[in-house]
Every structure is written in C-alpha cells, then in structure tokens.
C-alpha cells in the first residue's frame, strides 16, 4: 500500500465552446479551460482541502475525481491503479470506492424518496445485503454513524421533513453506506446554518477517524478549511497556486492570491467590523476561455512586473517542507 491514496498529475478538463459558423469555417477551436494542469497527491487518511473562489475549477476537479466528468488530459491514480480512463465494469467498482457528498443537501436527495429509500438505493444498485431486512439494518447502522438518533424514526421521514443539518448527515450516511475509501465533499457545509456547520464538520471528522477515510474537501471558505483539513491547496483559474499545511498556507501565505483571499475573510472582531477592507487585488476574474499569457494571475496582481507578463507560467516550487507555491517572485514579496 502506497502512502498516497490518490495521485493526480497534470489533470486537465477543457469544455469545448459552441462555435459560430465562421469559427467552424476558419477551423478555430476554443475551450473553457476549467481545469488546466492540476497536480496533487492525497495521502491516505488525510483531509485534503481544495480552496478557491467561484469558477476556479475546484468543483470540476471534484467531479473528474468522481468520474462524473471525463478528463481531457492528465493522469489519475487511485491506490496505485491507473483510473484516468476506465471500463464500465471497473467503473462499478470505482463507484463503491469513491463517494461524494454534495453541496446542497436539499437538492441531492429525491424529494419523493424516504430517507430509508435514499440510503437503501446504493445497496440496491451494488447488490449489497441479502434481503430487505438486512439492508434496513445497514441503513440504520449508517444513520447512527452520522449521529442521526434514533435511526428508525429518521428512516421513515421524507427529506423535506429534516433540517438542513440533518439532511447533510443523511447525505453523508448515504456516501458512507458502501464503505468507500475516498470521499469527495463538495462544499458540504456551505448551505448549512453557521450554527450547525461546526457540528457537521465535527461529525465528518469523527467518522473519518473511525472508518479511516480520506476526504477531498472542496470549499471557498478558508476558515472551515483551516479547521478541518490536513493539507490546503489554493486554486486560481484552473491551477493550484499554493499548497501546504493549513498553518503554513494561512499564516504565512506566499502567493499574492492567497494573501488576497485571506485578507478578504470577514472577521467579526470589534473595531474591524465596519472598516472597508483594503484587499490587495485588482479587477475581476478573467474568463477561463481567455487565460492570460504568462503568470495567469498577473492582471490582478498588485506585485506584477514585466517578467510575470512575458515569461513562462511559473510552476509549483518548494518554499520549505510541504509548502509549495507557484510564484516566481514569492521571495521578494
């Protein structure tokens, strides 16, 4: 068993853009480069956080890992096995090994199914459990794993009869019921009340320790990422710009984008509440269809120089230990 449960190398996902007639005639192809060369390793049993603003490609990365989307390029290795392009038969097995928790617990369950049916469905699909009774027992067990007590009561309810937190617990139970190795959690708490967020994250962490799971935790929220993850990767426009231990990345950010993200976090501390923050960033996110030449962050970077515009895009380089950054001027900043 290797140390890394998931290895992703230079992963790419380009969506073709619908072309006009003249584009077709001129043989001009254009793509939205949602994910444009992402490389990372996820260690067994860790929580890997993928952070970035909307549209940076973090959800697309998650869906590629879930095999809901086919990658355009790159390589994926799960547990030492190549899974970039796999057969339908291997996919069935893959679906048992890799599970997903969706962002919106309101929408991720069929409104006409009871919680019991929602949780029994994966068992039916993968033909787990001899009969209905056995499956119901497994459902009850999964519900108690996510601390929905008493399970018998929740099993008979419809999703709309549950609170957001309870629903997300039920959704988590659905992903756990097949005993996966790896779970992609796509902003699992962003739609949940602040008051229950910590509770859900705590539950997820407990479950992770009990069952030795590995999470890919996708979020735009730096504070939960810091609290929850073991490694943080910051994405910008389809690429990872900084990666490392949460303490290193959040407390000593090296990439100007990470710095901007961190300074944008609201702090409910007296004296700072009403101040309009001076965020060291300019402009808007460029379209993923027209990624800037050179360093892709240069148009928004307050430290950008000519070399950032004209020279090749910087690769991730080691700052110290596991802390990596993709900025050629990080030492000067």
């Amino acid at each position, binding site marked *: 068993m290797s140390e890394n449960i998931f290895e992703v190398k230079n992963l790419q996902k380009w969506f073709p853009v619908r072309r006009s007639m003249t584009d077709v005639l001129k043989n001009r192809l254009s793509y939205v480069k949602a994910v444009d060369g992402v490389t990372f390793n996820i260690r067994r049993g860790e929580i890997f956080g993928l952070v970035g603003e909307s549209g940076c490609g973090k959800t697309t990365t998650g869906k590629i890992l879930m095999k*809901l989307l086919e990658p355009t390029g790159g390589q994926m290795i799960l547990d030492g096995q190549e899974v970039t392009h796999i057969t339908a038969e291997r996919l069935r097995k893959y679906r*048992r090994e890799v*599970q997903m928790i969706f962002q919106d617990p*309101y929408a*991720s369950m*069929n409104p006409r199914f009871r919680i019991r049916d929602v949780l029994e469905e994966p068992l039916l699909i993968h033909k787990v459990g001899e009969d209905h009774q056995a499956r119901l027992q497994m459902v009850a067990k999964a519900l108690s794993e996510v601390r929905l007590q008493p399970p018998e009561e929740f099993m008979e309810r419809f999703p709309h009869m549950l609170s957001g937190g309870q629903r997300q617990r039920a959704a988590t139970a659905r992903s756990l019921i097949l005993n996966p190795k790896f779970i992609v959690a796509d902003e699992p708490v962003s739609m949940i009340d602040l008051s229950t967020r910590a509770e859900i994250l705590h539950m997820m962490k407990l479950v992770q320790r009990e069952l030795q799971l590995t999470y890919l935790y996708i979020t735009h929220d730096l504070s939960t990422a810091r609290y929850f993850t073991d490694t943080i990767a910051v994405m910008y426009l389809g690429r990872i710009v900084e990666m490392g231990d949460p303490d290193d990345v959040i407390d000593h950010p090296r990439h100007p984008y990470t710095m901007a993200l961190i300074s944008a976090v609201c702090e409910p501390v007296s004296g700072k509440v009403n101040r309009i923050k001076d965020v060291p960033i300019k402009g808007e996110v460029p379209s993923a269809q027209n990624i800037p030449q050179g360093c892709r962050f240069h148009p928004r970077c307050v430290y950008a120089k000519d070399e950032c515009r004209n020279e090749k895009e910087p690769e991730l380089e080691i700052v110290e230990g596991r802390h990596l950054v993709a900025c050629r001027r990080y030492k000067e900043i």
Partner: protein
Amino acid sequence: MKLKDLRGSISEFWNEFRKVKSGLVGLGIFVFFLLLLIFEPVLAPFSETNTRWRDISYWDDNPQSAYPIWVNFFSAKKYAKSSVLKDPQVSEEAFGTNRMMTYTFEYDYQYDIAPSDLILKIQGTGAAMMDLTFTRPDGETVYLTSSNLKMVEGGVSRISVDKGSKSEAYDFLGGFESRDNMRKFQRSSIKPAAILFAKAQENMLIDPEPLKGKYTIQAAILLQRPEDTISNVELVVPGRVFGLLGTDAFKRDLFSGVLAGIKWALLIGLLTAIVSVMVGVIYGVISAYLGGWKDSAMQRVFEVFNSIPLLPVLIVMSAVFKPSIWNLILIMCIFYWTGSVKTVRSMGLQIKEETFIEATRALGASNFRIIFKHIIPLIIPYSFASMALFIPGAIVYEASISLLGLGDATIVTWGQILRDAYTGGAVINGIWWWVIPPGLMIAIMGMSFAFIGFALDKILHPKLRTR
C-alpha cells in the same frame, strides 16, 4: 403505512381538485357516464342492442322515425304512443272439425296524431284463415284484411295494416271524401292508419281530425285441422313517439344505441390516451436523458411522426386493413404518442440537471434506474393531465372515421349512429333526434375529459412538485 400514505396523498389531491369548479363538473359528467355504463343492462330497453343493432328483424315492431316521447310535452297536438295489446278477449266456436277463434282487442285512442301502423302478431302451427275487422267509436266498421296464415313452430306471423290494408282503407275513404280530393291520392300511397283514426268527413285525408274513443279490433281465425294451434296473439300499435330518444329510419331505438356507444367511446378514448401518453412520456424522457446526437436523432423521428396528418393516414389504413376497432386504436396510438413528447422532453431536460440525479449517478445507478425510478415518477402527474386531454381527440377521430364509413361495423359507436343518420337521410327528412343525441354525447364526453384535464393541469403543472 403505505396504504395510509396513499390515502393521505389522495385526500390532499382531492382537496386541491375540489377547488377547481370546472374539474368537478367534468368529474361529475364522467361519473354519470360510468353509472350509465354500469347500469346499461338495466336501463337499455332492448337488451340485445349490442349484438343485433344491424339486424332489421329485431327492431320490426318499432315505429319508423318516431319522435322521442317527450316531444308530446312541447307539442299542442299529442302524438300516439306506442303500445302492445296483449290480453284480447278470446271466444271459440266449433263447426264440426273446424274451429273459429275470435280475438277481440280494445284500443282506447286519446291522441291527436294517429299511430303509424297496426301490427297483429300470431304464433302457432299449421294453416289458418283470418279476417281482421276494425270497429270505430262512430259505429263504422272496416274489413281490413283476409289472409291465409301458414305458421311454423317458433315463427311469428305478422299482419301489418300499413302494408296489407291500403286498398280497404282507400275504399273506406271513398265513402266520405270528395271526388276531387280522392283524385289527388293514389291507392298505394295512402297511410291506412291515418284514415282509420280520423273523423269520417270530407277532407279527412288532407286535414284529418282525430276521432277519440274506444276502437275494437277483431281477428277471426278459422282453424281447419284439430292439430293446428294458435297462441300469443298480440296487437302492436307502433305510435308516433317512442322511447327517450325516438327511433331511426330503420326502426332502431336510439336510446339503446346511444347507451351502447358509451363503453366504446370510453374504451377508445382511455386506451388510446393511456398507451400513447405512456409511450410519449418514456420516449421524451429517454430523449432528454441521453442528450447529444441521440436526442437529436430521436427528435427527428418524432418530428416525422408529428408532421404526418392523422386523418388521411387513418382513412388509408382503414381502407387497407380490416376496419376493426382494435386496428383503429392501434393506428391512433402510433400517431398520437407524439403529443406529449416535446413537453416531457423539456421537463426531462430540467429534471436531469437536478443534483439528486447527479448524486444517483455518482452512486453508480444505471440509466434505466435513473429514468424509471427518478425521472418518470416526477412526470406522472403531468402525464395524467395530458391523458385526460387526449381522450376527446381519440373519440372524435373514431367518430370521424365512422362517419366516413370506414369504422368498425360490428359495434355500436356514436360515430356509427351518425353515419347511419347520414346515409339514412336524417337531415333531409328532418329526423333531428337521430343526429343530435350521438353528436351531443361525443361533445359532452369530450368536454368532461377536457374539464378534468384542465383541472389536473392547473393543479399539477405549475409546481412540478420536485420538492
């Protein structure tokens, strides 16, 4: 638990349905039709309507083209009702081996317009001679006919005054009517019954006044051999009004016919609508779910079917194949399923983007499972509404095909009745009660389903009930 949920959701649905008035009207009419259908054996005056609709002998005792009975309520002159006189006074005289049986009927005539005929029905065996005498309240006696009867076991001999006594009636007329008036009529074209029940005076043929009172009809039958028998002598008086909806030119009771048409209309409507909506829903969902070039290809196939006009195809198909009701339903289904495809596809496109579909896919569910367990259940409410809206169309198409003479001639449908009315000259002869009831039934049944469909649409469509 399951049953309780079902009952709960039904009562919830009913509470919403109750608020739509037009839906309630439609449902009321539909229930009324169902009751008529269930009680058809009790309600239909002629129990063998379904099997012997086109058997002329079955309807022989009815008046031809008689008004519905309720016409008397609205008319100043009362039309004679149809009746059957079953209990004659019998007397028997013996002359050696010959026996003379005399059957005397009394008919109380209190109408303004005379009955259309008098029919004597005799059962028996062997041969006999018969004289029919008609005595009026004013004392006049008319010898109607003398005939030889040859009777067979089980058969019925019918002596019709309208057919057999024209000459005798003409001679009776000659005694009172003026010479000028007599010249206007030929012996063979007069209506004997109209003369027999009119006051004996000048102009009794042109402008007859009714002679009300007790009439006596006497049938004297001479049996020559001892083994010959006579039984069940009846006098049928076919009136000028008959049954709830009158009779047609072939003497058929239209009420029985219209009643028999209900089940076929329901069958055609429901079966066509259910089959074609089911096919359309599955097709539309699959097309939406697969997407890409498969979707495009399926949409082109759909457009081909959609752009073929149904009526000409139905006419050609009915001409080529044996025009049976099942063929007709099949052909209608083949061209009708396209109706719901576009809407269902657009709903499918919307539903397939829902997160729970993606979540199910992430669990490894097959396309089959996603389509049939997750998408189609959400479209079922819509499909009920669209089924209800499809039914009237199917009924009208069957009627159109029947009206063109290409329908199934072995069953009684409203379209078939209309077809007979068309060929039987209902319009020229002003037999409105042959045309309006079946036409109205088609319209009312169509309306009831349209109302139900609109109500369902109103309740179910806006929300789609995804959460």
